[in-house]
């Protein structure tokens, strides 16, 4: 049998030692009527066959390598340096478990410490944890922190928050008494300041702001924080944008979350990614999940340990800050290596390239008759293109005729929004691809009309 290294004589010797005649005797605690009579529903396959089955399934998909990908909405086709894969394939990293024995886990622990440090540097906040499942679940936990810290139950959120994030936040709040209140998006694509002022009250725990928001628009965080005053600001940010954009800590965010996918993680049909969650110092003990701290060993040597563990489920059980146990450590390691490889200037270059190419794409697309930018505010690597006809049909046609994944139709989230196409442009998209999409849109739109 695959992966079982016992021989028939090993088994006999072991059964003799235990003092039973058969393995079935070891299962005698299972009542007779619960025992399965047969369990035969899938033949085994050898490694070559298995690989060929899996290759067949993989090839039945349209991956980004074959089709220029302008899809975003929370997952992005960024370039991943070869060294990220090479290092993460080291099995000392990927076959280890949670660093419960720090003496033999310094590699994982130090890497997490470096991850925390990099997230603090990007967000401008003081403390980061070791990772969450993904950006949306990190935001769910962030809202719980804000409400529990302020002891307030009303949570404002910008309507320009990703519906993917909002859906998960709603699930996290399902059983509590926290009320989610939307704040309108103004015509320019940013949070409507007067709507924010009117909805702000003494019971408001926080404002949840995505920046850049779901439509790619960069919000004026500082102006919104001015309106909020002492009310907490929770920001959800694409970490790849933070090589360029002002860090949320600099405009008054107390909590910053997001998804590390744009930092060296393959799109993998939605996961695994890693959520990051950083907070200001006063919220440190409200953080969920694992945190690594620096200390010394009994000889005075520097080392790293899991710390502040009394927050966690294995100690505080029902009084823990969260139930999270396994996180996304290996994904966080990928992001750590990605950031280190790109470094100070490299990450900014990637951010700038996304910004520049997105603007070139927008400009080219808007030259086509009937296409226009929905919002006038500054944007980062995504924008909403208003199309002259149904965006979903248009995108489908662009793929069928030109093999380009044109963007995410907003009708997926809001059936009334039939003409909006959310286009995402990373540093990977070439000039030709940008021109190609623009031309394809023009031709298809002309044809459909």
């Amino acid at each position: 049998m695959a992966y079982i290294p016992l021989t028939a004589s090993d088994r006999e010797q072991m059964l003799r030692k235990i003092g039973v005649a058969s393995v079935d005797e070891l299962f005698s605690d299972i009542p007779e009527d619960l025992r399965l009579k047969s369990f035969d529903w899938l033949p085994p396959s050898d490694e070559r066959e298995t690989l060929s089955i899996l290759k067949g399934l993989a090839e039945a998909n349209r991956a980004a390598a074959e089709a220029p990908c302008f899809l975003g909405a929370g997952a992005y086709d960024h370039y991943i340096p070869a060294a990220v894969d090479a290092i993460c394939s080291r099995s000392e990293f990927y076959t280890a478990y949670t660093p419960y024995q720090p003496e033999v886990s310094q590699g994982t622990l130090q890497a997490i410490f470096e991850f925390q440090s990099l997230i603090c540097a990007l967000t401008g906040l003081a403390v980061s944890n070791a990772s969450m499942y993904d950006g949306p679940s990190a935001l769910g936990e962030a809202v719980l922190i804000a409400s529990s810290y302020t002891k307030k139950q009303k949570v404002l959120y910008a309507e320009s928050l990703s519906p993917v994030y909002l859906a998960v936040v709603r699930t996290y709040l399902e059983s509590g008494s926290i009320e989610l209140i939307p704040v309108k998006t103004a015509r320019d694509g940013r949070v409507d300041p007067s709507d924010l002022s009117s909805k702000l009250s003494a019971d408001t725990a926080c404002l949840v702001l995505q920046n850049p928001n779901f439509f790619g628009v960069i919000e004026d965080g500082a102006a919104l924080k001015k309106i909020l005053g002492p009310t907490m600001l929770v920001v959800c940010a694409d970490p790849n944008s933070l090589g360029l954009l002002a860090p949320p800590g600099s405009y008054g965010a107390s909590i910053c979350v997001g998804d590390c996918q744009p930092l060296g993680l393959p799109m993998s049909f939605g996961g695994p990614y890693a959520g990051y969650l950083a907070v200001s110092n006063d919220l440190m003990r409200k953080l969920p999940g694992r945190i690594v701290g620096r200390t010394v060993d009994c000889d005075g040597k520097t080392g790293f340990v899991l710390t502040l563990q009394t927050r966690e489920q294995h100690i505080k059980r029902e009084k823990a800050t969260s139930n999270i146990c396994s996180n996304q450590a290996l994904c966080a390691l990928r992001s750590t290596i990605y950031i280190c490889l790109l470094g100070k200037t490299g990450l900014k270059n990637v951010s700038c390239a996304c910004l520049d190419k997105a603007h070139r794409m927008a400009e080219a697309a808007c030259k086509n008759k009937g296409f226009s930018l929905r919002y006038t505010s500054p944007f980062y690597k995504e924008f909403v293109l208003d199309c002259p006809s149904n965006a979903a049909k248009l995108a489908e046609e662009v793929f069928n005729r030109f093999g380009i994944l044109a963007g995410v139709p907003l009708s997926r989230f809001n059936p009334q929004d039939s003409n909006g196409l959310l286009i995402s442009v990373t540093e990977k998209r070439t000039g030709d691809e940008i021109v190609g999409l623009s031309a394809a849109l023009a031709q298809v739109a002309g044809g459909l009309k």
Partner: protein
Amino acid sequence: MKDRKYLKSHEWIKPDGHVGISDFAQKELGDIVFVELPEVGRSVNKGDSLGMIESVKASSEFYSPVSGKVATINDSLTATPELVNQQPYENGWLVQITPSNPAEMNELLDYDTYAALAEAGGH
């Protein structure tokens, strides 16, 4: 330590309202790394949780021996929680309560009764 009264859950209270935990309790907890204290001015009933005392791998609540208001808290525990280990009866006090019903003090255990209970409950 006969100048104060005790709870079975190991808290002590002095006639002036200072509250702390016993030497027995701090030994059971081990190295204390963090103390979460209540806000000043909070009203509490006898037996209400006042906060948390945490060691590396354990966390326990401590309770108010009497009803009243939290008058002061021991701010120095923020930077040096180890005071609870080092001087549980002196500088390691936790909060000071202004009792609203001083008669409750009489319902508490005296030192000898507490010590006997702690001994019996210990290992």
